[in-house]
């Protein structure tokens, strides 16, 4: 076992409430329950490949955001949403951001995606990343600067 990685039980117990809250806000309670299970199953599959136990909160919330994205995509094809989406939970910004931000360092990527894809406040992002509001603001702006540079 790599250093600093807690047994999955401890990881799950620490983050499950926050993950469910995150998902409920984006998908509504009913869809959030399926997404909750998918999130932690995906985390369980990836868990042996973790190299350290830093930023596990940001890591699991990033997995949760991908599950949200999958869910939104699936529903989009199922119900054929109109050109201009009105559904509250649909985040077109995220769809553009996800592939675009792939090259960013994990913390900056999480900050950018949570800020611009999901409209989270810096205080919430700070909490999610296990740091502070100021650090979240800094990570997001560093990420944006890096993207500008890369895409210039």
């Amino acid at each position, binding site marked *: 076992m790599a250093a600093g990685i807690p047994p999955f*039980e401890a990881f799950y117990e620490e983050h499950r409430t926050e993950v469910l809250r995150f998902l409920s806000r984006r998908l509504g309670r009913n869809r959030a329950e399926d997404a909750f299970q998918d999130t932690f199953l995906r985390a369980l599959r990836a868990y042996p490949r973790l190299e350290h136990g830093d930023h596990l909160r940001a890591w699991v919330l990033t997995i949760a955001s991908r599950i949200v994205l999958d869910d939104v995509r699936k529903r989009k094809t199922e119900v054929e949403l109109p050109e201009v989406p009105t559904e509250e939970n649909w985040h077109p910004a995220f769809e553009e951001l996800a592939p675009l931000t792939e090259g960013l360092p994990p913390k900056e990527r999480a900050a950018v995606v949570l800020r611009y894809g999901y409209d989270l406040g810096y205080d919430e992002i700070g909490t999610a990343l296990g740091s502070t509001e100021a650090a979240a603001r800094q990570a997001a702006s560093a990420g944006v600067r890096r993207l500008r540079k890369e895409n210039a």
Partner: protein
Amino acid sequence: MTDTVSAALDERFRAAAAAEGLLDVAYDVLPDTPIGSLLVGVTDHGVCRISFDAEPERHLEELARLHGSRVLRSSKPVDRVRLELDEYFTGTRQRFEVEPDVRFLPAFNQRILAELARVEYGTTTTYGALAEQSGNRGAARAVGTVMNRNPVPIVLGCHRVIGANGNLTGYAGGLERKVQLLQLEGALL
């Protein structure tokens, strides 16, 4: 609060994790056996832990280090051990079918535990005899240490090993439990 994880949702995830074969160790607590609460852990290879100390927090780190970090409480994988223990405690089972998983132990411990597995229900042996049978004549004390660190007591019946002079000597779960198990098996009045 609507945002807390309900028991149903929690159990559903734990069951799915086991059903998809994603766990290194599934464990559960058996809260009221005749000898108190037991913590039981299983891997794909069998039962890897039975402990009289049923506080999971005191086992998680070690189980993760020995078997892999994906350690999760999940009741279904433990059902078979639960049933066999239940039958053992009610006196209807004398031999366990569930395999002990002791692959992580040193070869010396494994050899002695393999010898221990041949000691029949309702009988006792001594530390010295077990040492000799496993090809380690004179290593009674080392055998005692192996018994003390037996990761799966009851299933591997280290309670059946006593001192040469008939003293019960010791037991990781406390002497009282050793007496209780030997009485259950009819090896002690």
